[in-house]
């Protein structure tokens, strides 16, 4: 089975969880004996392909007479791209093309100087353009490769997936790693929402990373429940790391929040819970590790509550400092308002740190040895923190089972489930 897969990033050049997830999933798919063509906007040459064919969208040559400019139904699939940036051909060539393709109405001043487009592959200002352009390159790739099924990861690649489907007639799976509601709360970007919705409507199957996400997809995007399937993420075993110094220079126990300080992650609930715990238990310190748009407000709130000597901000942590933070922690809290999956509690559990996670996270669906509270239930969260710190039975249970449980959450399960879904689609 040959799968044409569209991603946006690939290790080591990643900025979010999407790249990590794609990497873990694709490796497991190879182990499950599926063949993969994995397309990314930009390859740096140091990506560990490990048996799959990586396709660099930036290296795909486009010609004006490429049939890919026309999709199967004869309609032009060009998107509204700021034409001055259109990279595909020389001006003369484009004009020629435009004449041939009568439905292109407006041709503005164009700059034709390259046959390939160099994607940044990032999340910058021209993201929307890149997304659309990626779709055009995708149709060329679909035309020139053999495959049985198309799989697109997150909205950035959905238009690419749709184009590939139009050209090839092969079934399309779109994978929801996160929805616009997770990222932005109620203030959704309508353009992104529209691409997500269009992608899911056009897809033959939608894969959601948790039941929580599946629910969002059905309720907020109006997608037919019959075609939405949950495939929980897995985790890769950690890379060998050199041991870090986790010495604490004070006797109090540490409760940690580690993540972006943004609406989605629910940092304010952590602060309110900390305040409640501190009213009763002075043998504890709280740490908020991370940065984000809500950080200034959070610092002000901590000051307002007068607990600045017990509540600390570390800013953004990376690499060894993250491990050090886990190593020092006595409890880890993930109070996310909306978390499609959420991998950080698993990292904490690997370091034998008991975790308290919000019920509004996908990871809560797969974890047993964790305390689960509603993100808004500040009393429940405070109670869970206090219990974890003060009742030794919890600590020993988590120590005994937590690590094992994390090691049992594998990408191979996800890959096998996906294989079944593909199989079903191809033989329906």
């Amino acid at each position: 089975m040959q799968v044409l897969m569209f991603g946006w990033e690939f290790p080591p050049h990643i900025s979010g969880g999407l790249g990590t997830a794609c990497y873990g999933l694709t490796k497991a798919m190879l182990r499950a004996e599926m063949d993969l063509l994995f397309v990314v906007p930009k390859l740096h040459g140091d990506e560990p392909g490990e048996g799959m064919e990586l396709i660099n969208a930036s290296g795909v040559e486009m010609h004006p007479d490429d049939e890919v400019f026309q999709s199967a139904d004869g309609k032009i699939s060009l998107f509204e791209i700021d034409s001055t940036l259109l990279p595909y051909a020389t001006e003369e060539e484009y004009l020629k093309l435009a004449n041939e393709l009568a439905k292109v109405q407006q041709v503005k001043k164009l700059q034709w100087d390259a046959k390939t487009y160099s994607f940044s592959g990032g999340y910058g200002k021209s993201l929307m353009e890149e997304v659309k352009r990626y779709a055009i390159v995708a149709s060329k790739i679909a035309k020139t490769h053999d495959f049985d099924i198309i799989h697109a990861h997150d909205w950035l690649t959905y238009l690419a997936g749709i184009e590939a489907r139009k050209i090839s007639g092969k079934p399309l799976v779109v994978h929801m790693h996160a929805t616009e509601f997770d990222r932005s709360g109620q203030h959704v970007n309508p353009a992104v929402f529209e691409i997500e919705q269009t992608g899911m409507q056009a897809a033959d199957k939608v894969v959601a990373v948790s039941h929580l996400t599946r629910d969002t997809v059905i309720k907020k995007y109006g997608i037919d429940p019959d075609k939405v399937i949950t495939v929980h993420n897995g985790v890769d075993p950690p890379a060998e790391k050199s041991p870090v110094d986790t010495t604490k220079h004070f006797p109090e126990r540490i409760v940690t929040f580690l993540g972006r300080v943004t609406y989605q992650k629910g940092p304010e609930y952590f602060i309110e819970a900390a305040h409640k715990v501190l009213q009763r238990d002075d043998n504890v310190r709280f740490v908020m590790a991370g940065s984000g748009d809500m950080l200034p407000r959070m610092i002000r709130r901590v000051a307002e509550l007068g607990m600045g000597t017990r509540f600390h901000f570390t800013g953004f942590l990376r690499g060894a400092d993250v491990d050090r933070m886990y190593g020092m922690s006595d409890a880890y809290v993930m109070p996310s308002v909306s978390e499609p999956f959420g991998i950080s509690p698993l990292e904490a559990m690997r370091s034998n740190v008991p975790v308290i996670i919000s019920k509004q996270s996908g990871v809560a669906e797969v974890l047993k040895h964790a305390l689960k509270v509603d993100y808004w239930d500040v009393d429940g969260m405070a109670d869970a923190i206090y219990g974890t710190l003060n009742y030794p039975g919890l600590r020993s249970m988590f120590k005994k089972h937590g690590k094992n449980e994390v090691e049992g959450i594998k990408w191979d399960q996800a890959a096998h489930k996906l294989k079944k879904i593909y199989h079903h689609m191809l033989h329906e």
Partner: protein
Amino acid sequence: MNICLYFQVHQPYRLATYRFFDIGDHDQYFDAYANRFILQQVAEKCYLPANEVLLELIERYGDDFKVAFSISGMALEQFKAYEPKVIESFQKLANTGSVEFLAETWAHSLVSLKSKKEFKAQVALHEQAIWDLFGQKTVSFRNTELIYSNKIAQMVDEMGYTTMLTEGAKHILGWRSPNKLYNSAVVPGLRLLLKNFRLSDDIAFRFSNREWNEWPLTAEKYVSWLQQVSSDDDVINLFMDYETFGEHQWKETGIFDFLKAFPGLAIEEAGMRFKTPGIVAAELKPETELDVPYPISWADEERDLTAWLGNELQDEAFEKLYQLEEDIDRIADEKLLHTWRLLQTSDHFYYMCTKWFSDGDVHKYFNPYNSPYDAYIHYMNVLSDLSLRVQNMNGSATPGK
């Protein structure tokens, strides 16, 4: 063939959501609203209608139909407080002379595994309650969750009981039949009635299960199974939760019709007699002695204690609970002692069981908490407050300390 029907009646005092900031602030540990609500529901759905059915059966079959109940002290106390008609209904049954009330630990507790003194105190309390309400002097004993061991047998014997009920656990019986009377290897005077778990669970657990290849279970089919028991056997012990009727198995499953029909069929068509544990134990001669060095119970496949004790959460909570015994004894405060006993109920430890992570839908069904961890935190918060109170009262009870 003798049939021995015993029904367990129990309702715990469920804990309220008690947060750590309540510790030291107030002692409203129990969810009075939920306890009342659940008790009234179960009374309506199960106790009252099931008692009606039994009363009709007793009236109809006279001496041939007798049953036994064990009603925990906490259930009795909650009936009195929330739904006194249930007590009256049991009194009506008691007045027929065809019902035996068994003795148990007042708090439906696991105290037999921990403290002889408190165990005996709770049994005495329960004996008194049965005497006061039903005018019966208890002659048979059943321990919480049918937990039994040689050590427990000795304590029960010391209290003057000659009959005790327990589980027909396979690993104890081996090839032997549960349908015989046995006696204890350490105190031969104590006769043992063993639950026939297959025939009991056919009603209690499987009755409404549509995936069971014997579904639907009719009275005719069930009585034919009772008849298949070897003619060498003496008694079939059908022990189950009374809540089976109308609560675990809903009325719509036909469970009440079944209860109405099968005793009549067994008596009239198969010549069987329904007797109480006290009568069976007096009439039969023990087959052989049973040696039970490690405690057995009626729970799960293992028939051991792991539903209540064994994981770190349960063990710690259990230890901390009984660490208070000496102080509570010394302080001798009625309310404190009562509260401590309410916290001894086996249900609290059952909620902390982690076994249902892998199996046991049954555990999940009976658990009001999202997870054993939630159950543990709530319980420990309450226990922390109780410990504080004990410390404070201890301080004032023994000045200078």
